[in-house]
């Protein structure tokens, strides 16, 4: 297990190195952020002064070495735009994204699993076909379009739900949370549902496929032949087998939902890290972009590790050191 974790971390380091290299030089090639910050009256001297302040006057390779040096000390640099440490900006915004992603994961599982189970048990029924059609739409219709249609319908037409921001939040252990207030919940519903659609479609398809396969398994027949109640057969005997692929895929998908909730956050002006990333890219705020992407890599590695652990809990055959044959 330890060896496994060490190997994972080593891989992550390599990914981090390559990623910083690409982003650092890539952003440099795109343009000089100074021209975006500086006012139009700024003279040559004024521009040089800003560049010197930000360390942009040095050759790019020297900037990169400095960056690596600081990184080794855990310092990811200050945002060009805000002048505060990039990491603190990310931490400030991250709870909003995490809340949004968690809510959409919950919706995806709560809606997708039962629908998938039903479609798997009655594959030929009309309802099942409707469910599968819905999941196909969820995959293929662009998120931004769905988000806009939701806003048009529920905010503009019906006026039921607010379309912008997080609403009223409550501090839980110093972290602002929307889901606990009525207003916050109303703000959360639309973006969370929009963000959940792809995951939901995936859960539906995986659950259905798993169900259809598992229902023909001998161990399900045997459980039924032993008189085990149908609810128990489906809810435990079949379910635990179905969950294995669902958990694997959802884990990976969850990480990318957190990392790239950009579109949804932009549409609903959700004050999360995704929106922050878009803003940072718009002004070429390199430290913030790099810091965020490092953050994403670390998060992916962590979540994948969690999935592996969860996976081994579900499937005793892959349990590390489980004493199997």
């Amino acid at each position, binding site marked *: 297990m330890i060896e496994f974790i060490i190997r994972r971390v080593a891989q992550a380091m390599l990914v981090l190195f390559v990623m910083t290299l690409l982003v650092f030089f890539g952003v440099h090639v795109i343009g000089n952020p100074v021209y975006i910050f500086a006012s139009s009256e700024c003279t040559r001297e004024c521009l040089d002064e800003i560049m010197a302040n930000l360390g942009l006057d040095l050759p790019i390779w020297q900037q990169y070495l400095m960056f690596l040096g600081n990184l080794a000390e855990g310092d990811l640099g200050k945002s060009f735009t805000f002048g505060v440490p990039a990491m603190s900006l990310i931490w400030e915004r991250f709870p909003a994204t995490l809340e949004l992603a968690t809510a959409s994961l919950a919706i995806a599982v709560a809606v997708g699993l039962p629908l998938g189970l039903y479609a798997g048990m009655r594959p030929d029924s009309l309802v099942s076909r409707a469910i599968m059609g819905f999941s196909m739409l969820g995959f293929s219709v662009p998120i931004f379009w769905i988000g806009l249609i939701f806003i048009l319908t529920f905010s503009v037409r019906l006026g039921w739900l607010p379309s912008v921001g997080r609403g009223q939040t409550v501090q839980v252990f110093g972290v602002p949370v929307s889901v606990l207030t009525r207003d916050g919940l109303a703000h959360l519903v639309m973006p969370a549902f929009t963000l959940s659609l792809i995951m939901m479609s995936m859960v539906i398809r995986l659950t259905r496929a798993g169900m259809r396969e598992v229902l023909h398994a001998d161990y399900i027949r045997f459980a039924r032949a032993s008189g085990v109640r149908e609810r128990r057969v489906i809810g435990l005997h079949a379910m635990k087998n179905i969950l294995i692929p669902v958990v694997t895929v959802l884990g990976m998908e969850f990480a990318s939902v957190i990392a790239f909730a950009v579109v949804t956050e932009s549409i609903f002006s959700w004050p999360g890290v995704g929106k922050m990333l878009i803003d940072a890219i718009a002004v070429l705020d390199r430290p913030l972009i790099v810091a965020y992407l490092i953050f994403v890599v670390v998060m992916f590695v962590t979540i994948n590790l969690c999935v592996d652990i969860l996976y081994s809990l579900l499937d*005793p055959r892959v349990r590390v050191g489980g004493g199997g044959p």
Partner: protein
Amino acid sequence: MAPVLELRGLRTVFATAAGELPALDGIDLAVSRGEIVALVGESGSGKSVTGFSVTGLLPSVARVVAGSVRLNGTEIAGLRGEAMRRLRGRHVAMIFQDPMMTLNPVLRIGTQMRDALFAHERMGGRAAADRLERALAEVGIAEPRARLRQYPHELSGGMRQRVAIAIALLHGPDLVIADEPTTALDVTIQGQILALVQRLAREKGTALIWITHDLAVVAGIADRIAVMYAGRIVEEGPVDAVLDSPAHPYTRGLIDSVPATHPKGQRLPQIPGRMPTLAELPDGCAFAPRCPRRSGACADRPDPAPAGGGRMVRCFHPLAEGRA
């Protein structure tokens, strides 16, 4: 005394694109208390379908369309849902072929056994654990307590089949349908499992239907034998009489194809051709196209007729007794 299980004219069809095809075409069979009946035939002859028709576990495309299934004198054909579930495990249990697949790979042995136990009985956790340990000990599993905490992949194939047998016998069912339970096992383990099931069935007076294609197994375990071909029982009777002097040409062919019964160095006789699929069943005797004794009469369907020695045979030209 009424037989534990009595099938009369059982007909099961599969709904396919080509229409409804008869997988079972009028099965008559009776099994008494403590009796072991072997159901023999090639793959696709309807052996397994017979078992699943009794327990109501047919695949969704198949259904029983005619005939009666009486368990302890009560009609159970067409029972569904909870009424059928109450019978399964308690009055009629099943054991399947592949012990690798019969037990759920992601649930502990104890969980699976407990679910089967609680399906029909309520009891406390401690009492249940004791009961399960005793059930495992009864099928010859050492350290039953430790086994309950293990997963199927931690046990050998023979051990898994023992667990499946323990689950099947948990409620002392009146009838056990064993669907090729030894086919996937090593020969030595096969013998052990055979002896185990035979002993338990005799001790408890359980009626047993043993589905197999292995005639050597039949000779060792069964009291009576029913030979199936294309959804019909073509010959049925006491195991010694049928195996020593088969009356149906198909039974004869089956026995002759077993290498052990044949003199060394001679070419092993085979039954020419293959069993017709359900879609291409002839109107008359289904075996006629492969039969060395066929005649014009075989274009009609033969009815079961007594053939001496307590036997029934479906053939217009049965082999004379003792001619084997």
